[in-house]
């Protein structure tokens, strides 16, 4: 008999950083269609983000401090994808994997630090926008905590990428996006 997933457990898992990916997630509640749709898109977006960081690292356009930021961002994206996948599989759905996509990037997306920052910001601003909406849209409090955590991380990554381009953009109120708008923004990259 498996133990049902509880709010306390999710909070523990969410606080656990890397451990988050390793723990099984089983919701004790019935996720709504909208919650599952958010999670499906969010997994896909985080997989895209991990791919973006991988390409940026492979392009060798940055020196060590910048490369560390990319590595950390990639690690976070993989952990986020894993945590969100757990929500889906716990609800009985197949979670997307990187093999399901043929990610597409513009030819000059990773040629310079400014280009890398620009490419990453497109993805991260979309994810941040969706996470803001998800925090409000989902009914389960533990989901809200997770999405708030993901939004915080996306904001940190945006700051790190902005610094790569020797810029200091600070948006006082990043725009919230509904699922349809977020989907449209990333569709050219998801293949």
């Amino acid at each position, binding site marked *: 008999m498996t133990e049902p997933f509880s709010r306390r457990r999710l909070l523990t898992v969410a606080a656990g950083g890397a451990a988050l990916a390793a723990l099984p997630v089983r919701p004790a509640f019935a996720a709504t269609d909208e919650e*599952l*749709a*958010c999670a*499906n*898109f969010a*997994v*896909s977006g985080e997989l895209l983000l991990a791919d973006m960081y991988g390409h940026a690292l492979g392009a060798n356009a940055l020196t060590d401090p910048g490369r560390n930021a990319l590595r950390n961002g990639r690690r976070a994206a993989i952990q986020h994808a894993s945590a969100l996948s757990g929500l889906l599989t716990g609800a009985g*759905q197949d979670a997307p994997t990187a*093999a399901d996509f043929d990610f597409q990037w513009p030819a000059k997306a990773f040629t310079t630090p400014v280009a890398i920052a620009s490419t990453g910001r497109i993805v991260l601003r979309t994810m941040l926008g969706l996470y803001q909406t998800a925090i409000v849209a989902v009914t389960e409090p533990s989901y809200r905590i997770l999405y708030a955590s993901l939004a915080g991380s996306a904001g940190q990554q945006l700051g790190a990428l902005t610094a790569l381009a020797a810029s200091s953009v600070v948006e006082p109120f990043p725009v919230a996006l509904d699922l349809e708008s977020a989907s449209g923004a990333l569709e050219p990259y*998801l293949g």
Partner: protein
Amino acid sequence: MRARLLTVAALVALVASATLASGATARTHADPLTIYAAASLTEVFKALDGAQHYNFAGSNALETQIRNGAPADVFASAAPLNAERLFKAGIVDKPVTFTANRLALIVPRSNPAGITSIYDLRSKPVKLVVAAPAVPVGGYTVTVLRKMGLSSVLNKVVSRESDVKAVTGKVALGQADAGFVYVTDARPVSDQVSVIRIPAWAQPRVRYEIAVVSKSPNKAAARAWVKMVLSAKGQTALKNAGFLPLPKASS
């Protein structure tokens, strides 16, 4: 002389009888195979090899027919489940994945309901046509809508069809405002329908599997045909018809 004629006649009769006897148990290479294939493979299989006998229908219906003893040599299914079930029952040899596909929403060219996005299905009054849930494309449709948080759209279904060609036909003829089909089914009727893309993140894993029927009287030819579908020639034909390459995990 008469004795010699009788001998020749007897020899001819013997050869003819031997030929007939062998024909009853094993066909020659020139004889066409009977291939049961998912309806979505209609155009590409006929173009790839027009010399075979085909039975195109929903994979679920074909599975039932083969299970009941229909004389198929090869089964090509639009979902792994149908081929795998027959394999587990010992009715077909081990199936292999040979191609993949994607779903799309199609609307009549005149687009009377004004649908430009899959999300419009939620907000606009539409007559939606889908395949029955047991048909692979019908199951994939349910998956897409669930992934996008649009399951409520199924309340607008006016007709559930037995295969993807029936869905395509109804939309092309304007008998429905929209329908879910494979992207490859929209191509042959591109002058009659418009295609609305389904986001990559909401796509189901559409995998086609092919297998030789275990009781086929001509397994060697059936195996060769399957090999041809998996060959560069077969894969090029599938690609040209809009099918996707072998999935990464299978290639």
